[in-house]
């Protein structure tokens, strides 16, 4: 592994957020191939979307367990991917789009509204465009989508639960999109999918 290209001045100073920002275009080839930084990718309707270029670098699982993205959300909760993720992205250092912080803030607000723990499923936070689940552009590859499989003791595997919490999400988070309950493509029946759309975050220290 070569040293990760970073922006010397693009390091957050907070002791709780020690992650470096990296330009995906300067990463080694295997990472660029998997992350496709800045590339265009079509969504399910054929509309082109531009993938994120800037990422936070996560040096280790230990750091992912420690970094708070919001009061009740640690970084590790957003990066649980299984064997379907591209191999270089299953080992550390890992990379996550900078917009992940926006998602975390929204989920914190959602958690306040539901008043209990919000559980993000495996493969349900950030996953790369090379993940085997990623057929078309999905906000998961922007770090702005979450699949929530459980809230408190309630599993979101039935219409009643999914629709109830979907409504709370939409009332709580202006502009959020939730996947309707159902089995066809574009629907969800065993989790609540919510996303902020194809949001790209470029930290202001980045000079490009």
């Amino acid at each position, binding site marked *: 592994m070569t040293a990760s290209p970073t922006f010397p001045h693009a390091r957050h100073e907070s002791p709780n957020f020690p992650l470096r920002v990296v330009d995906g275009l300067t990463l080694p080839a295997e990472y660029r191939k998997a992350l496709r930084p800045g590339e265009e990718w079509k969504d399910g309707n054929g509309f082109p979307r531009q993938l994120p270029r800037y990422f936070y670098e996560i040096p280790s699982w230990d750091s992912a367990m420690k970094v708070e993205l919001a009061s009740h959300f640690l970084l590790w909760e957003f990066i*649980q991917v*299984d*064997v*379907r993720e591209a191999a270089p992205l299953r080992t550390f250092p890992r990379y996550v789009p900078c917009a992940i912080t926006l998602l975390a803030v929204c989920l914190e607000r959602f958690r306040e509204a539901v008043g209990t723990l919000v*559980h993000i*499923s*495996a*493969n*349900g936070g950030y996953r790369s465009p090379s993940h085997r689940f990623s057929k078309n552009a999905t906000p998961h590859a922007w770090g702005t989508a979450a699949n929530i*499989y*459980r809230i408190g003791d309630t*599993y979101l*595997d039935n219409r009643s639960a999914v629709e109830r919490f979907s409504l709370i999400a939409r009332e709580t988070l202006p502009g959020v999109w939730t996947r309707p309950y159902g*089995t066809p493509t574009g629907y969800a*029946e*065993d*989790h609540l999918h919510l996303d902020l759309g194809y949001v790209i975050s470029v930290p202001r220290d980045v000079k490009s």
Partner: protein
Amino acid sequence: MPSKETISPDRPAGTAAAPSESALKREIEKIASESGAKAIAVALHDFETGFELHYQADRWFHAASTIKVPILLGVFAAIDRGDLLPHSRVHVRNRFLSVVEDIPFRVESGRDANSAVHNAIGKMMRVDELAYHMITTSSNLATNLLLGVIGPQSVNETLRELKLEEGIDLKRGVEDELAFDKGINNLVTADGLLKILTMLAAGKAFSPALSRRMMDILHGQEFNQGIPARLPKGTRVAHKTGEISNVAHDAGVVYLPKRKPYALVILTEWDPNASGRSRTIATISHAIYEALTTTPTDE
């Protein structure tokens, strides 16, 4: 320890006593006729003597959960290729697509004897954990998760590469009721399963180390009402059962003290309301044990 066991090639013919094939077949026929089973098939390979028995062994049966043995082989093929690691993580999600029009279905939690996999929904489990649950408690959820990762096509390719495809017909995952209703089922013959078990026991599936790991998992089997039920204390059996409304099977390798093991497959088919399935399998298993461990008599 099972993991230390390796089997040298079969002893040359004539150096140990082999049972009478015709007498053993007559015994199986007698048990079959008394049991009320609609069909029974038996395949046997004894590593001690080289003796083999093939009774209706090319007849196709609904595989039920014995199909998990070929799937286990497919998982370890992926490990052997480096596509998976034993500790690779798999998202535990209870949603699968039927081979009939890709219609989603779920595995009922009440159908799995072990709740460990269902309790991990939303989280991840390791490939080796799922393989263990797939075999030892016959977890259908674990089975479909593993098959979802490697794909049925990959399992079939592995069977072809190992020249084991004859007698194994894998079409889908388990609990795909729509497929069942349309007659799209996984099928096996006794000979088909015997070839896999013989290869595993001989340490010839990918490598001796990987074969041993698969045998270790099969040794963890928790359902022991079939082949092991009437065998002497101290006998160890690495095996996989399978049962649905109209079939009951058991397929495994029997390790007795002071002799090489034998691989045995017993497949049975029944009317849905029939009883005595496990007892019949256990009786056949005992008859084979008796035949292999007592001096044969002239016919």
